[in-house]
């Protein structure tokens, strides 16, 4: 659902503030500082960071441009490991049987089950590869507007956190209220009138 795909899902942000100094340089530095690691960590269930738009699997900002006309364009990559519940159940059953056989008991305690589950999740987490998701970010720096090609809550929240860390600028989601506050040219009195509106009742 990215920028150059046939359909798009988009959420928008107003970016509060401006960067001191050269925006192009500082944005590039922020992207490099919070780029996704080249080597996947076998311990992390979730890893997220920036990658160039043209190179989502090799976060090399020296090789690929982030400037496209008046925009900065890059991607947020989220690598997530998720272990299917049925896989955990399968290994749990095998381990529980082994443990009962070894101890000669007919049951195992709740605590033992929890320990086994943790051990299995830990083991599988190391073995399972992370699945990457790519969300493109189109930023009109001068207009302080940014388009994230995702409407998924988790992706939006990750984006907001990483963006703030990377550029020290706060992304504010654009929805009816923030649109009035940040993108309209209403006078203060009109804004006050808008903000005192209540839901319409159409029935007589």
């Amino acid at each position: 659902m990215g920028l150059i795909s046939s359909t798009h899902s988009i959420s928008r942000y107003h970016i509060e503030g401006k960067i001191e100094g050269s925006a192009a340089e500082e944005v590039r530095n922020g992207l490099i500082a919070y780029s996704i690691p080249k080597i996947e960590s076998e311990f992390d269930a979730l890893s997220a960071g920036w990658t160039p738009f043209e190179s989502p699997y090799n976060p090399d900002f020296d090789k690929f441009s982030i400037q496209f006309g008046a925009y900065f364009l890059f991607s947020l990559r989220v690598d997530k490991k998720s272990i299917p519940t049925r896989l955990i159940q399968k290994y749990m059953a095998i381990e529980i049987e082994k443990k009962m056989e070894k101890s000669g008991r007919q049951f195992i305690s709740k605590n033992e089950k929890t320990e086994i589950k943790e051990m299995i999740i830990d083991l599988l987490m190391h073995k399972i590869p992370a699945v990457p998701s790519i969300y493109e970010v189109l930023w009109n720096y001068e207009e302080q507007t940014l388009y994230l090609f995702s409407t998924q809550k988790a992706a939006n929240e990750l984006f907001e956190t990483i963006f703030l860390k990377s550029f020290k600028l706060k992304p504010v989601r654009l929805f009816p209220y923030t649109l009035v506050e940040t993108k309209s040219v209403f006078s203060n009195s009109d804004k006050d009138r808008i903000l005192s509106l209540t839901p319409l009742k159409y029935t007589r």
Partner: protein
Amino acid sequence: MLDIAAAYNKYKFLGNDFLTWIWFSIETQKNFSDLLGSKDVITLEIGNSIVLENQLGDKSKEKITIKGDEAGLEEGTTALKKGAWVTQINLMCKINEDEYKFTIKGESYNITGLKTPKTDLSKTGDEIEGLVLEKAFFCLKIYEVIDTLFLKYLEQRVSDNWNHKGLQEIKNWIVSF
């Protein structure tokens, strides 16, 4: 500015009221080019889905979803009569010869399933920058139309004759079904 989460909940009705007004404007054949003050020929049509919600007496809600390319909207108009409002709508927007299809949600203003006009540029080599800029132009164009309409709608809502004219016209439209 208010706390963002609180403001989102407090003012989500503005987006829903706006989408209801868009439906009304389409059905009563308002001239969108005039409304937007645009030289382009801009038309809007209801697409293949519309979702309405109705707050029931207690904390529960009634949700009415109408889907399908040729779906009748009778259930939707009945829901409006019962006091529902539009929370999500699929629209077809034509700007001159360019056609856009998308779904917009009132409370979040998120756009999903946006189909922009076709482009001949390729995803590889030298044409990538041109493709990106063209796609960006299309995506931003639709927001420009929707934002301008939203702000025009708010202008009407806070105008002195809203209760006598704007709201009354919507009420008349609803009872006309």
